[in-house]
């Protein structure tokens, strides 16, 4: 059953990803991207990473996608007036991406033998265990990421403001 769920979620993620890059209307692209994100959240749950699944849905489906949609509506881009690239360029792009796929699978395929000795711990994905790691081993990066978010907010406001004086 869970095995079937894995392949179903994988199929949904890849199909939605394909639709994101082929849809003519940018609003449709955003909606397909939301489907892909929910499929990836399902993968996190299958991997026993509940905290990541929740954060993924809140951050991506809740914040980032709303930002994308509001910018598309703000700039009134919900129509396809995008000039197409030539067929030669499209073919070259497809060949390049396919070669990249072959390279990635070829490079990463040998890595699964390294991890065979580890006993499985099903508690690491829970909020309690992850919070302990986050606030003990990774406290400094956590605080620095707060600064990063603050500077991103200020940077976005400064960029879109018409006259600062």
């Amino acid at each position, binding site marked *: 059953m*869970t*095995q079937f769920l*894995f392949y179903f979620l*994988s199929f949904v*993620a*890849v199909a939605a990803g394909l639709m994101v*890059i082929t849809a003519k209307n*940018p609003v449709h*692209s*955003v909606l397909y*991207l939301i489907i892909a994100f929910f499929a*990836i959240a399902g*993968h996190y749950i*299958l991997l*026993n*990473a509940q905290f*990541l699944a929740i*954060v993924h849905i809140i*951050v*991506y489906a809740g*914040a*980032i996608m709303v*930002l*994308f949609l509001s*910018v598309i509506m703000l*700039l009134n*881009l919900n129509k396809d007036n*995008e000039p197409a*690239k030539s067929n030669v360029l*499209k073919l070259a792009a497809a060949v390049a*991406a396919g070669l990249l*796929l072959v390279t*990635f*699978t070829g490079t*990463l*395929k040998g890595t*699964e033998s390294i*991890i065979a000795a*580890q*006993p*499985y*711990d*099903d508690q*690491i*994905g829970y909020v309690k265990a*992850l919070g302990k*790691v*986050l606030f003990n*081993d*990774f406290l400094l*990066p956590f605080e620095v*990421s707060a600064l*990063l978010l603050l500077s*991103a*907010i200020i*940077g*976005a*406001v400064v*960029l*879109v403001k018409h006259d600062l004086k």
Partner: protein
Amino acid sequence: MENISTQIAQVAPLEHYIILSALLFSLGVLGVMLRRNVIIMFMSIELMLNACNLLLAAFSAFHSSAAGQVFVFFIMIVAAAEVAVGLAIIVMIYRNIHSIDINELSKLKW
């Protein structure tokens, strides 16, 4: 413990997660190369980030190490910051050249 270990391997072997992530990443790269709409290129970048996140989470679960999941968390923070600043830049570009076609931006000066 041994029982659960075989249980997670039964869902899918790590190899399949690698292939899935490579596929999603390649789709993102293809989107960046294929499209001329800046916003869709931006979405393709998000797709690539998510492929990396998924692979990190898979390795973390199979390796029984929480560090991988913490890194996924940090990547999400960076992605949120990146989207905020990037969309602000796109709005500013649209204000100046009234288009989001990437080819219009080949001359950065005007």
